[in-house]
C-alpha cells in the first residue's frame, strides 16, 4: 500500500516534469519559427525600445532570456499561469517587455527554469531578445528576498528587468518567500550584444 502510494505520487510528479519538458520544447519550437519568420521579413531591430509593442496571446513566446554565466537559455512565454510556467519563464502581463521603458517582470518555477537563479550575483550579465527583435543587455544590480505576500514589484520610468522565483530554492512545500533579482540596462551596450554571447 505504501509502495503503491509512493509510486502514485512519484508518477504524478514525474508526469508534471515530463509535461514541462514537452511544453518547453513546444515553446522553443514556436520561438524558432517566429524568429525564422522575422528573419525572412527582415524586420529585425537592435535598437533598445524601438518599434511598436505587439500584443501577445497567453502562452505565446515573447522573448528569449540568456544568462551566459549560468548557461541559462530560456524562451519566455506570455503569462504566469500554471500552463505558461510549465512551458518556460513567464512574462507578467501588464509589465513592460524587456528593453521597453518600464519594469519587465519574468517569473519561473524554482525547480525548473529558474533553478539556478539563486546563483545569480550582482554584476552578472543578462541578455534578452523580444519577439519583436529588440535586444537588450542587462547587468544585475541587486537581489532581495521578500515574503510571498509582500509588495515586490514596482513601476519604473526607465528600462528595468526583474526576475522572480520562489525562495528558498531548495524547500519542501509551498515556499514562503520570493527571490527578486533586478537588473538595469548596460550603459555602454547600446543594444549590441555583450562580448562572449
Amino acid at each position, binding site marked *: *500500500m505504501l509502495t503503491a502510494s509512493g509510486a*502514485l*505520487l512519484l508518477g*504524478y510528479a*514525474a508526469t508534471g516534469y515530463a509535461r514541462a519538458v514537452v511544453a518547453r520544447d513546444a515553446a522553443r519550437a514556436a520561438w524558432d519559427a517566429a524568429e525564422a519568420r522575422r528573419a525572412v521579413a527582415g524586420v529585425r531591430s537592435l535598437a533598445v525600445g524601438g518599434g511598436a509593442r505587439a500584443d501577445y496571446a497567453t502562452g505565446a513566446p515573447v522573448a528569449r532570456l540568456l544568462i551566459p554565466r549560468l548557461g541559462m537559455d530560456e524562451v519566455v512565454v506570455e503569462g504566469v499561469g500554471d500552463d505558461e510556467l510549465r512551458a518556460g519563464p513567464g512574462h*507578467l502581463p501588464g509589465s513592460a517587455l524587456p528593453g521597453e521603458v518600464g519594469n519587465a517582470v519574468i*517569473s519561473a518555477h524554482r525547480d525548473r527554469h529558474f533553478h539556478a537563479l539563486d546563483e545569480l550575483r550582482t554584476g552578472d550579465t543578462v541578455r534578452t531578445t523580444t519577439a519583436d527583435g529588440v535586444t537588450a543587455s542587462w547587468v544585475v544590480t541587486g537581489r532581495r528576498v521578500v515574503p510571498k505576500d509582500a509588495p515586490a514589484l514596482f513601476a519604473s520610468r526607465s528600462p528595468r528587468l526583474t526576475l522572480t522565483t520562489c525562495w528558498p530554492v531548495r524547500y*519542501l512545500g509551498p515556499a514562503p518567500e*520570493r527571490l*527578486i533579482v533586478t537588473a538595469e540596462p548596460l550603459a555602454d551596450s547600446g543594444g549590441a550584444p555583450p562580448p562572449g554571447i
Partner: protein
Amino acid sequence: MNRQIRILVAAAALLAGSAAEAAAQFTGVVTPPPTRREQAAVARADSASRSPGARDSTNAARLTDMKTWVDSATVALAGSAAPPPAAAADTAADSTTRAGVAAGRRRVAAVMPATMHDGARAPDTATQLPTLAVLGAFGIGAGLVLMGRRRSA
C-alpha cells in the same frame, strides 16, 4: 502530574469564563473623595460667586459684552455652514463605500496578482512537484523496506 494539568486547565477555563463578567464590572470610574485642600478651594469659589459684589460684576460684564457676543456668534454660524444631516450621512456613506472598494481591490490584488501594477506581489511560482516527488520516493523506499522485512521474517 495529571492532576496538576487538570487544575491548570480548570484555572485557565475559570479565568477565561470570568473575564467578560469582570470587564463588565469595571466599566465605571470610582472618584476618590476630595482632599481637604480641594474642599477648601471649592468652598472659597462658591462663597465668592455667591457674594453680591461678585454677582453684580459678573452680570455687568455679561451685559456689556452681549452685543459683541451676538455679532461674533452670527459670524461663526455663517462661517461654519455645517452640512445638513442628510449630506453628512451621504458623506459618511461615500467614505464607507470608498473604503470598502479599496479593501476589495486590495483583496483582489492579493488573490490575483497575475498582472503588473505598482506594489504588486511577485507571481505565485510555488509548486508542489518537488514535495510530491520526495514523498513518493520516501513512500516507495519505506514500502520496499517493509516488504523486505516481511519476507525475511
